[in-house]
């Protein structure tokens, strides 16, 4: 899976998105309108990358969220279509 090095979770109170990088052990906090639409596993709180990527082509907020990840260096902006 692409981007399997990061784990994305939404806070239960929808105050933000927390992203953990498995390679660097760093944690990033993102506040983004897409937090309201993120579908997370009800138990683990984890977001499914496949679902997220499927949203990017049709949802501007999802695209903006992915851009935030690119800006933070969490994913490679050039590798999405590979």
């Amino acid at each position, binding site marked *: 899976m692409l981007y399997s090095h990061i*784990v994305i*979770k939404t*806070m*239960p*109170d929808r*105050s*933000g998105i*927390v992203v*953990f990088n*498995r390679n660097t*052990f*760093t*944690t990033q*906090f993102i*506040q983004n309108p897409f937090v309201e639409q993120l579908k997370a596993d009800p138990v683990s*709180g984890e977001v499914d990358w496949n679902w997220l990527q499927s949203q990017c082509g049709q949802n501007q907020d999802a695209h903006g969220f992915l851009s935030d990840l690119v800006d933070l260096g969490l994913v490679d902006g050039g590798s999405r279509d590979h």
Partner: protein
Amino acid sequence: MIIDTGHYRFRVSGAPEYCYSELSRMYGDSVNLSPEKPVDFQLDFTSTSWLRTLVRPQRVLNVDNQRIFNPIAKDKCLPSIEWGMNWCVASYDHTRLLIHSSVLVKNDKAIIFPAAQGSGKSTLATLLGLNGWHLYSDEMAIVDLNSATVSAVHRASSLKNQSIKVVHSQFPNAVFSRTTEGTQKGAIAHVQVHSRAEFDHFGPASVVAVACPKYVGGARTEILPLNQSQGFAQLVRNSFNYSTLGEQGFETLFKLVQGAEFFALRYSNVNEIGDFLETLV
């Protein structure tokens, strides 16, 4: 002398005689408990030179035979034992998530108080620990990686400067250590908050709230709710070993955050804060 704090056992040797009597008063039945069991950490004081045994005597504290700290004056060794114990746990225990905070528990529900030095967290925790709450730690929250519950350690509470007088004035019958003047942190004293018998009844507790306290002399009590993202960030910032634990630390912290409320507290009146905390448990 062996000090059994629950999760961690320390052997202290080579310390000036007065330290042993002070530690015995602070730790009571936790001293030399189960001597047949192995210890986790060895804290050994040695002299730096023959001359320094006579002129301005000083000692150096070694941890497991490694010289970690700078030499200290002989009459300032007592706080160094406490700091050395903290250092051992924060540096070596990566089987649990450790957060720089005090921890209070009531009704099996825990509130943790992550804050920087000088915020008054130890004073607040000690005053409440001597007044009906269970003080699980005045220094670090010890979080189980699977359950995200916190557990207690049997340690004396550390007080600095004005806090010593504040706590002594309200609880003059509490067991205080002698005060060590002129340390890098100023005057330091320790106080026994719970006996070993009380500690033995302290089980794991779920975290229901995280409060970041800030004592401001003369200030009105202000309670500012924080969202979970802000709370998560506060806990990451105050953790000793979050980045060492990797994804396990991340998952544990997320689990802890899910069940907790978060607040920033600005206060000068401990009773008002105590009343508020009661509503959380």
